[in-house]
């Protein structure tokens, strides 16, 4: 079944390359071979953390003309928020490397592909 679909694809590709029937649709300058690695990409784009704390701190600064001693409460809460965000980020990245919700992570795919690369020479 897989072989049949494989040969069908190969026939389609060779038809696209051939100059016999129509103008060739593909003119590849490199051989049509897949790479042994996958692009590293992150699907979910994150958002800015601790924006509320930051804006509160900046409002306090504006009021007190940037004197730090009067804004210590806001600064402490900002630091705590930043710490929590860092811990959350670490936990999330750990979870990322372990499991990817049905798919493998790009790093894991790359290690697998490295173990079984495309054959360069005939065995």
């Amino acid at each position: 079944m897989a072989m049949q679909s494989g040969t069908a694809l190969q026939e389609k590709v060779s038809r696209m390359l051939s100059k016999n029937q129509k103008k060739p649709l593909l003119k590849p300058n490199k051989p049509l071979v897949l790479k042994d690695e996958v692009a590293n990409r992150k699907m979910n784009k994150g958002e800015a953390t601790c924006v509320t704390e930051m804006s509160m701190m900046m409002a306090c600064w504006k009021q007190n003309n940037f004197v730090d001693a009067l804004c210590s409460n806001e600064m402490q809460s900002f630091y705590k928020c930043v710490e929590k965000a860092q811990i959350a980020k670490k936990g999330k990245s750990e979870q990322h490397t372990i499991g990817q919700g049905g798919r493998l992570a790009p790093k894991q795919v790359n290690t697998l592909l490295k173990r079984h690369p495309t054959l360069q020479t005939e065995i």
Partner: protein
Amino acid sequence: VSASSIGRLVMLFLVRWSRYNPYYLEPEPRKELYNMPETELTTEQKEERELKAVRPIKATTNSTTSSVFNDPVLSKFVNMMMRDGEKILARGILTQTLESLKRKQVEKYHKAPQGKKAEIECNPYAIFHQALENCMPVIGLASIQKGGKFYQVPVPLTDNRRRFLAMKWMITECRDNKNRRTLMYEKLSQELLAAYSKEGNVIKRKHELHKMAESNRAYAHYRWW
């Protein structure tokens, strides 16, 4: 194991900056951790001790000691001041700075009236640490590209980065805005005292960074972390 002197060829194998095998453990120079009795250790620390009996340990740098005077912040400051590998000169400047800080403060102490004597801080290490803390910025700016243009986005900084910026500002300020005839330790002690009382150019630079961040607070959402 130490280099014989500056200028002569070092006749030993420099191991620290080659890539250690990952199973080498970090060295622990602090004495208190070794003096703790068996009962006070947590399970993690007990595991660490068992691991240390089996695994090899990396060599420490020359500047780490187990003495009471070993201060990682001060060592970092000395390394940042050092030029061309002249550690002796940099460390000498730092000791002279601490000495001049002490002298100035003791002079102030003796001249002060009885009521004010308790407020004057004479410990130069305490002054150094407090001055550095007063110079550390709370928030930094990062250059983020969005839609072809670069925006200066306010960004929270890690503690290491803040400490580095405070030290860097201090050193560059003392190097650049120095009179030709004043020595480095003199200028450093002046700046440190000013920073301790929250005045001076370094504090001004910190405030300018805060003002820039405050004016750019609209771009805070361009961050993605």
